[in-house]
């Protein structure tokens, strides 16, 4: 029996475990993901992943295959359908196959691991993703990352840094990555792999070569802990948020890697000041935040900006947009301030 309590406010933010895992596995570019369940689970997610990538100016057809469970499979067991589908997919010779379960497969108790264990030649990785067992979208992301990390083994270190758990369905994924890369470069560090975004299967093996893992946000801490335990790689729990995040981020990364960060911090402080100077014309403007930031972190990031620029928040103020996810680093802040300026001058 699954003893996890269901998260509250489920429909708003928790989502489906399967979708979370798919947002990861579909970014292993030469792999195929098999969804063991009725066709609808695959179709719905295919549409969502496709539409979301279009929103981010990418045209992608997620490599998904459904086992297409029918009523007959439910009655007699779906293991045969999975077995047949795996054989068909293996014949297409992908770099790896990820097998994701669904609510119906786990309800009738199909032994997905057993069926996958009979296949040889191509890695067949099982990710448990039945949504009704109380997991959220994030559970799916974490389960998938941990399952994929199982494909990596100990390798010689290369001194570089992994990016862990980019939110492939959010806006500005690549902009945020660029910002974090910029900060790492200030410390003389470069990125090893983006785990997982546009990643080839054979690159997963180098996961353990990195000296540090940078997690996209703290909800990935279980993954960071797993990688630390398995490969001994320390981690930074989150991207830097807002105006004040980057200096702290530089210090944490430098601390974890044992490198000096005085020059990098000095440069970053100068950039921060430069940004404030660039938007000094906004000082004294009356604004209202619309909508209100959805989480405390976003709220703090917005308040920091208000204070640093000398803005006034009042109910009669001109509404300025607040993104669902808080701005990452100085460049994220700059993009947000451009939007605020446009709103104020509109």
């Amino acid at each position, binding site marked *: 029996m699954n003893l996890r309590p269901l998260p509250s406010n489920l429909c708003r933010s928790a989502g489906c475990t399967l979708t979370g895992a798919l947002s990861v596995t579909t970014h292993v570019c030469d792999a195929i993901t098999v969804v063991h369940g009725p066709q609808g689970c695959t179709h719905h997610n295919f549409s969502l992943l496709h539409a979301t990538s279009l929103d981010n100016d990418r045209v992608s057809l997620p490599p998904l295959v459904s086992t297409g469970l029918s009523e007959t499979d439910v009655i007699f*067991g779906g*293991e045969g359908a999975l077995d047949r589908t795996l054989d068909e997919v293996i014949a297409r010779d992908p770099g790896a196959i990820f097998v994701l379960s669904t609510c119906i497969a786990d309800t009738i108790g199909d032994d997905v691991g057993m069926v996958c264990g009979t296949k040889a030649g191509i890695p067949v990785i099982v990710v448990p993703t039945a949504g009704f067992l109380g997991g959220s979208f994030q559970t799916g992301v974490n389960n998938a990352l941990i399952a994929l990390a199982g494909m990596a083994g100990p390798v010689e270190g290369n001194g570089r840094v992994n990016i862990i758990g980019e939110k492939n369905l959010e806006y500005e994924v690549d902009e945020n990555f660029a910002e974090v890369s910029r900060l790492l470069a200030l410390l003389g560090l470069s990125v090893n792999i983006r785990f997982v975004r546009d990643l080839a299967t054979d690159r997963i093996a180098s996961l353990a070569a990195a000296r540090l893992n940078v997690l996209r946000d703290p909800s990935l801490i279980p993954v960071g802990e797993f990688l630390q335990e398995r490969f001994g790689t320390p981690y930074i729990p989150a991207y830097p948020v807002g105006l004040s995040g980057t200096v702290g981020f530089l210090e944490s990364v430098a601390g974890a890697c044992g490198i000096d960060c005085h020059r990098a911090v000095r440069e970053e402080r100068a950039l921060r000041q430069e940004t404030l100077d660039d938007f000094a014309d906004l000082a004294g403007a009356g604004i209202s935040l619309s909508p209100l930031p959805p989480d405390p972190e976003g709220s703090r990031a917005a308040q920091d900006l208000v204070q640093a620029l000398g803005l006034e928040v009042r109910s009669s103020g001109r509404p300025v947009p607040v993104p669902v996810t808080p701005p990452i680093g100085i460049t994220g802040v700059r993009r947000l301030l451009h939007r605020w300026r446009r709103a104020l001058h509109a």
Partner: protein
Amino acid sequence: MKQIALYGKGGIGKSTTSANLSAALSLAGYNILQIGCDPKRDSTRMLMAGRLIPTVMDQVRERGATGVTPADVVYTGFNGVRCVEAGGPEPGVGCAGRGIIATFQLLEKFGTLTGDVIVYDVLGDVVCGGFAMPMREGYAQEVYLVTSGELMSLYAANNICKAIERLSARPKSRCRLAGVICNAKNQPKEEELVAEFAHRVNSHLVQFIPRDRVVQLAELNRKTVIEYEPASAQAQRYRDLATRIMENTRMTIPTPLEIDELEALAIEFM
């Protein structure tokens, strides 16, 4: 058309009782359909001269749901009794309850569910929604509990009362408890105990069927008692059961007991 379902603990004699009841009803001139709702598929065997007929789910597995015809699943046995076995998945895989639901939908589509009396013989416990199917959608409106005087058997019968109580509370539900059949283990005061149990759950004892060697002899000869030894006292009990079921108008919503009440009852009649 009368639709009745027999529920009770596994091994208590539901299939034997159902088959003899169907045989007796058919000899009384009624057109009978008996449907075994258990993956074990042996409900109708004594009506079919010992033959395990192909099940609905076997046929679906082999031919696909669209390839199955009524002739593949309905078999005529003793004295014209039509026999159907729902069947189900291999033990240990899949979902047998969904198999029962699928069987009912197919039989509905085929127009098989006709006759004067349909007897549904349903597996031991109502383990999931699928096995409650005969009590739903207006199929079986009269549920008979088959039990002995043993505590575990009464416990199972009491659990089925809970299912009936729950289902009968639904709007438009016509499912009711029609009575209790005592298939005895020949314990002392067994008839009194089961009669009292029936009374406490707001029902009545319809028929007491004593334990008799002729049942085993008939089974070894692959026949119902009605067919094998029609002159026996046991055959008369089954005919009495058939008569009472056809005359029965006392349908109730049961009042299941708590486990300690049930135990106290069993101790009272020890």
